[in-house]
């Protein structure tokens, strides 16, 4: 059994991190000066609106880093400096967060991410073989970042992966070409295997009859519905 997330961690910590001295040509990193730290207007707007949601604006640090990661592809020093500038905190403060949380990338990452869950329930059903297959198939593709991930909370579709945030499963190594093809083509990823379409396993659930659908106009579709949630009626074994 390969270690869930272990290689991941090493890469993030990077021997380089432990072994990295202060650089002589740099000075102490205090809160970035807005005059010398340009921040894209849209990013600034997102960070500032996140800050407004909380009694203490620092609560917006993680949402702000997420937003910066979307813009820059990863939490690069530049991305961190921009967030630090808008939030008026030191970049070190944000770096300590970026390196703490698994979803924040601290090295350049591809445009797409594939998290393969390799925790216990998935690995009991073949996740390690799945991970190996995905890694092999995507090895030459700098656009796809494959990561072994801890339990993603979808053991009912084990083994599974989160592909750009979309949960798909159960998957076998044989499914990998189709999965990557969908990803590269920008299509919905294996729609029939998406968690969004799965019904609850408990046969005794849905104990109340469903009433007839609402008349036209009632219950406008939400974003989740548009994304295909509840689109299927297939009950899985």
């Amino acid at each position, binding site marked *: 059994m390969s270690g869930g997330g272990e290689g991941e961690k090493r890469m993030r910590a990077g021997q380089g991190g432990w072994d990295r001295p202060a650089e002589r040509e740099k000075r102490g990193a205090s809160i970035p000066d807005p005059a010398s730290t340009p921040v894209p207007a849209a990013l600034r707007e997102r960070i500032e609106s996140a800050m407004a949601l909380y009694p203490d604006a620092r609560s917006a640090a*993680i949402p702000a880093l997420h937003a910066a990661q979307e813009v820059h592809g990863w939490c690069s020093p530049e991305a961190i400096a921009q967030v630090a500038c808008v939030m008026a905190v030191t970049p070190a403060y944000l770096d300590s967060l970026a390196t703490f*949380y698994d979803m924040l990338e601290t090295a350049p990452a591809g445009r797409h991410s594939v998290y393969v869950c390799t925790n216990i329930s998935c690995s009991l*059903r073949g996740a390690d073989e799945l991970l190996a297959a995905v890694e092999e198939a995507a090895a030459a593709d700098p656009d796809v970042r494959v990561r072994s991930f*801890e339990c993603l909370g979808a*053991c009912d579709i*084990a083994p599974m992966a989160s592909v750009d945030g979309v949960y798909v499963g159960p998957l076998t190594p044989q499914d990998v070409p189709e999965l990557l093809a969908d990803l590269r083509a920008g299509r919905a990823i294996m729609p029939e295997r998406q968690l969004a379409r799965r019904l609850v396993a408990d046969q*005794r659930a849905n104990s109340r009859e469903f009433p007839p659908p609402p008349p036209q106009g009632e219950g406008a579709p939400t974003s989740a519905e548009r994304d295909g949630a509840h689109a299927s009626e297939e009950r899985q074994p």
Partner: protein
Amino acid sequence: MSQQLLLQDIDEPGLHTLAVYERRGGYEALRKALAMTRQEVLSELEASGLRGRGGAGFQMGKKVSFLPHGAIERYLVCNADESEPGTFKDRELVQKTPHMLIEGIVIAAYAAEASRAFIYIRGEYVLQADVLDSAVAEAHAAGYLGEDILGSGHSLSLVVHRGAGAYICGEETGLLDSLEGKRGNPRLKPPFPANQGLYQGPTLINNVETLATVPAIMRMGGAEYAKLGVETSTGTKVVSVSGHVQRPGNYEIELGIPSREIIYGLAGGPPEGRAIKCWFPGGSSAPVLTAEDLDVPYDFDSLAHAGSMLGSGAIIVVDDSTPILDVAMKVAKFYRHESCGKCTPCREGTNWTVTMLERIDRGEATPMDLDIITSVCDHIIGNCLCVLGDAMAMPIASMVAKFRPELEAHMQAAHERALPPAAAPAGGGGGFA
């Protein structure tokens, strides 16, 4: 037919929208609660005997009653950082019936006199967080959130906060630090969150399922709810069953039914021709039980009595095709990865345990190493800042205790594979560090 409270409409098309939820009687419980005094609502919660569904199993009503009164800002935080391996019940609820959760939050906030609430949802749950965002917006537009809810004078703001991938943020004080924009390091307790939680204010923290159950309690009345389940574990519980079973998934059960009924009756048991080697009754943090324990009633106290725990209500079944060492390594590596690093026994102990298990797998260990593992686990349990260290030490210690012969055989076999027959055995003994 078991009572279904949480899953009764779960797959109804459009249930995640306000319109469908309301047609199903949604937010009636809130109207009922707002017509009562806060104390009356609290009494119903206390009467229900509802115990927290996140892992610790603390009585929810009691937790609410611990919040100090007075003119201070109180917070309610919903823990949707469902990260315990094997657990996926909150995901199902949030995704499919978000308004049930929101309704529960508004009622609980009313009882707790909280005017600001946050849902901390793990960042990996992208779809579910989007669903919640939409539902919160709908509830706000309909007057179930915001100022002066339904003319009651009670106000509540609700913000959906997405995490970024750290198991420790499921620990309530780690979650609070994370929500405050820090590393998710657990805090010393006391002070408990009820006194000094989010932004130093009194804070009620509950799991998704706990809060989602609140509307049902308000509809039925606490006393009626308490008739479900068994005396010290009332009500129904959504159990996530995964691993080596034929029908993995979520099942809503009345607490106190035999575990066998869940694993075999509902989830279909292990694949044909396989037998259960062990099972985790409450997520990977729970000490493992074996096939002999299948008749233990599935409730908080019975499982504790059997030497394990109900935890988050996640059953992971391992059949006889998997070596126990593989299970142990998976579990130990997970906790090493997720240890926040703040306190010594957890940070160092999880790491050490992994290296010892790896050495067993490489054939470089002796049976004495199993004693050391047990001792290291002993030194972690109860000595850490939070329970993450215990969460590794307890299942690992249980595996060493219950499967020692298998581990010794594994060790021996690996040893023979690794070394030519005449070579000297590798030492596992003491020495100066």
